[in-house]
């Protein structure tokens, strides 16, 4: 027997049984009032659910004989090697510090959350690290867009955050809790522009740019490159854009082809860059391509193969650097993971070690004290160079240029700041 909640008006009644009632009754839409009522119910439910969840979060407190640090990174997704490499670098540093007795006698434990390369996931991963796991410090992310999504959360909660490899200047501008151990894009952009203008094999006067307009990293780097390239006397003949994950670049590449550039600057991440390179070669675009540290992944060579031969990117270190600091790290890393570390692994390692150094000298493990120590970092001998924090919590350090040869990056040059 169908029941009806509306007493007066039979038309507004929704039969609760599944009998064959006439369509006249079922084709109705809901009124505004009903919609508002529905939204209210949903709203109350959401509020209740979130408050229940946050109650549950408070229950865990870190034990006193260990230090818990958090890492959020893209362990899966289009930039998966970024997160995995960084995590491995961090793990290596933790193993080292724990083997040497830990930080002031306390063992360091790492909690890693996967953000799938998604800014929303990054936000919730960091919230979880900070509120539920109550970590002492946070490491991450590689992609600037994801670091920017997470940094305000760390800043508000007074938890120091070190981004190993987000190069966009805005990341550390979020506040005095946010640090990084890599160079920033104004420097990287000028390095790329200088290289494009002056390298004997390129000597470009006309450059095209293909930028990922959804990534702050890519947009920022594009601007810096353009500034430096035009200041050096070159012209940008075509500026095209794509969105992370796009599959079809033929319109942009056809357009670039028509503008006849001598070099194409692609400040994107490796998955997209690989696809772009493949499609560019198919369209008969043979000029060299140039990019930033977003290219740094073993996957790049796997995707693009020899389509990237004769292309260059700027990076934080080269595994071909003969200095013992670098070669030691590579030996350790290869011993543990049976692969050659990329720049992101090296930066993850450096970020963790800088953090431990700061923790050792800090008067307490409060966020403020650690951050204050981090700010004082000078002359830290990292794998990726000597790191000193400037007033904006950005290190000043050189960049290297790598050339892709049959899928592997080879060292070409080192360019120091101010050169």
């Amino acid at each position, binding site marked *: *027997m*169908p*029941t*009806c909640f509306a007493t007066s008006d*039979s038309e507004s*009644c929704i*039969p609760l049984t599944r*009998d*064959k*009632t*006439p369509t006249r*009754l079922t084709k109705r839409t809901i009124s505004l009032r009903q919609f508002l009522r529905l939204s209210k119910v949903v709203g109350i439910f959401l509020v209740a659910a979130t408050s229940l969840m946050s109650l549950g979060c408070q229950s865990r407190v870190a034990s006193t004989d260990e230090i818990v640090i958090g890492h959020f990174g893209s362990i899966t997704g289009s930039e998966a090697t970024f997160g995995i490499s960084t995590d491995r670098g961090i793990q290596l540093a933790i193993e080292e510090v724990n083997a040497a007795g830990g930080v002031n006698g306390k063992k360091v434990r790492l909690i890693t959350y996967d953000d799938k390369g998604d800014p929303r996931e990054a936000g919730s991963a960091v919230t979880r690290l900070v509120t539920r796991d109550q970590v002492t410090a946070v490491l991450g992310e590689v992609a600037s867009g994801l670091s920017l999504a997470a940094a305000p959360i760390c800043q508000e909660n007074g938890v120091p955050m070190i981004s190993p490899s987000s190069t966009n200047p805005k990341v550390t501008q979020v506040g005095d809790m946010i640090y990084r151990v890599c160079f920033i894009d104004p420097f990287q952009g000028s390095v790329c522009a200088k290289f494009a203008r002056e390298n004997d094999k390129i000597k470009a006067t006309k450059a095209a740019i293909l930028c990922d307009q959804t990534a702050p990293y890519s947009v920022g780097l594009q601007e810096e490159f353009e500034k430096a390239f035009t200041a050096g006397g070159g012209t940008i003949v075509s500026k095209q854009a794509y969105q992370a994950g796009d599959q079809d670049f033929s319109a942009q590449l056809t357009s670039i082809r028509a503008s006849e550039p001598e070099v194409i600057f692609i400040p994107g991440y490796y998955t997209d860059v690989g696809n772009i390179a493949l499609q560019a070669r198919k369209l008969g675009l043979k000029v060299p391509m140039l990019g930033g540290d977003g290219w740094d992944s073993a996957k790049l060579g796997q995707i693009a193969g020899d389509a990237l031969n004769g292309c260059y990117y700027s990076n934080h270190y080269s595994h071909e650097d003969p200095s013992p600091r670098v070669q030691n790290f590579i030996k350790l890393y290869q011993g543990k993971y049976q692969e050659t570390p990329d720049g992101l692994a090296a930066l993850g390692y450096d970020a963790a070690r800088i953090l431990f150094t700061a923790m050792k000298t800090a008067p307490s493990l409060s966020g403020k004290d650690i951050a204050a120590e981090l700010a004082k970092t000078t002359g830290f001998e990292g794998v990726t160079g000597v790191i000193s924090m400037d007033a904006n919590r950005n290190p000043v350090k050189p960049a290297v240029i790598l050339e892709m040869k049959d899928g592997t990056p080879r060292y070409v040059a080192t360019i120091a700041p101010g050169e």
Partner: protein
Amino acid sequence: MALLDIENLSVSYGSIRALRGISLKVEPGEIVTLIGGNGAGKSTTLRTISGLLSPQEGQILFEGKPIASKSPHAIAANRLIHVPEGRGIFANLTVEENLRLGAYCRKDTHEIRQDYEHALELFPRVKERLWQLAGTLSGGEQQMVAIARALLARPKLLMLDEPSLGLAPQIVQLIFQVIRKINAGGTTILLVEQNANLALQVAHRAYVLEVGKIEMSGPAAELANSDDIRKAYLGGH
């Protein structure tokens, strides 16, 4: 055995009871009409028989078998055909496609062809419009298509819901002539009409429905002469 035998049928729309325990019978070869005012439950009765509505109580026997729990397409496949109020034309299909759908459940290609020709003989005007979209026809033409289409199912029982609704008097005359012809050909008909005058002229027997209950029943001629009926439904003539 009656072709259609309804006992104590009750149907509700939500909390509104549309039918309150009606019983009626249709014998093979008859034209039975169901008359009554607006909202009396005439269309509800037909919609329940054809399976579009489920009854709360009561049973419907067609050729002695219960059909009240069956789905509408299974009931139609038993050749109990319902031409709904408003004619049930598929406006997005051509007239020809509409007619073909009438024979949807049949496989006897040869006989379908015969019935098709026969239906078009009954309605020469439909024949002229075969390739038009049915939605572009006039109301009278649509009613003709609806009846012709129903005939293509070779109905054992043909249920017509308000075939005269909104049509010009000449067209109504024509439709009712055809109804007689169809019946003369051996098809049993259950006719729902608001125009009681016309319905009682053409039917053998009649039921009078009022707010979900059968108020009166009997041979059509008798009811046509009854004073109550004349007052209530025939405009007092």
